[in-house]
């Protein structure tokens, strides 16, 4: 059996036959090709087989179209550009959760670092004041003892120590360096 798809058309006319079928052949050439087809069985059979395939493909191609709300959804997306698409919702949510967790971890790290620095700072300041106060008290103990109603040196020493501790805590609190319960999750 002469299968036109296997034998093929005349080589000179193959492309022209396709373009003639698609309506893309210039009129003058189209006339020549049409005349040839009337005289050549091979080209005629091949053109018919091609037309059959073309019709089949056109019919087989799904008729797809955009949803009616395409533009409305696009406008919504443009109004909130970071919002993920419906298909990306799950991935988007996971990504947001990851970002949220990373942010919290960074905050906790920062708070820990600040608390540590605050504690070191407070201890150093307290030690310096403690040493200075001790020397001062040692030098002025004679004078203090001569003042009537004056406090004992050790009490002065304690008062200065408490004041330094309060000052250290206040400084840490102002800097937000204290590990407050609100940050722990």
């Amino acid at each position: 059996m002469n299968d036109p798809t296997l034998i093929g058309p005349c080589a000179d006319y193959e492309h022209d036959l396709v373009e003639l079928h698609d309506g893309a052949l210039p009129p003058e050439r189209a006339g020549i090709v049409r005349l040839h087809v009337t005289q050549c069985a091979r080209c005629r059979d091949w053109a018919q087989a091609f037309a059959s395939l073309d019709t089949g493909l056109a019919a087989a191609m799904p008729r797809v179209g955009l949803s009616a709300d395409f533009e409305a959804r696009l406008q919504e997306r443009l109004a909130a550009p970071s919002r993920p698409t419906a298909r990306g919702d799950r991935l988007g949510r996971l990504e947001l959760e990851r970002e949220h967790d990373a942010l919290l971890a960074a905050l906790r790290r920062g708070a820990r670092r600040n608390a540590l620095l605050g504690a070191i700072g407070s201890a150093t300041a307290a030690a310096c004041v403690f040493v200075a106060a001790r020397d001062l008290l040692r030098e002025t103990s004679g004078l203090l003892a001569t003042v009537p109603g004056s406090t004992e040196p050790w009490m002065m020493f304690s008062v200065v120590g408490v004041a330094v501790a309060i000052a250290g805590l206040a400084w840490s609190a102002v800097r937000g360096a204290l590990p407050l319960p609100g940050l722990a999750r």
Partner: protein
Amino acid sequence: MDAGIEQHLAAGRHARAFDLVVPAYKDRVFRLAYSILKDRAAAEDAAQETFVRVWKALPGFDGRASLGTWIYAITRNTCLMELRRRRPTVSFDDPDSTEAQHAAASVATGPAADPEHDNLLRLLETLPHNQQEAVRLFYLEDRSYDAVAEQLGMPLGTVKNLLHRARKRLMELARPDEVKAA
């Protein structure tokens, strides 16, 4: 159509230009995305993503290429990124690759109602990816060579060649007599 858009662009009225761009290009952008992704929902998502990118990049559009060429290039890039996201290791250029065939089958629309059409679509899946795209787009665009050339960013002659080779191969594969008997 593009003249009005370009006037707005030239005047720096990007929002007004964009308002004209979407209705003018949305269907062709969607069909191009569908011809590449072979899935209606994915094509619609890609079309949305394309217009979001167009919206962001419109102020930087310099007019060196035509607006359509520029938009279709964004569409193709968006679709290629989607394909890479799905199957990063698959080469779609190798139609004989088992993985490529599985990937293609997994993204193809459900079987056509007519067995003859179903058979043709299955045969189409066996062709090289660029031929598949050209054929799909050609029929989605009512057999317009010019539309296919513009949307795929190829010279007209290349598109004609691709379509010719693809359909000739399909003729050989389909054997009209067998298709009719199916």
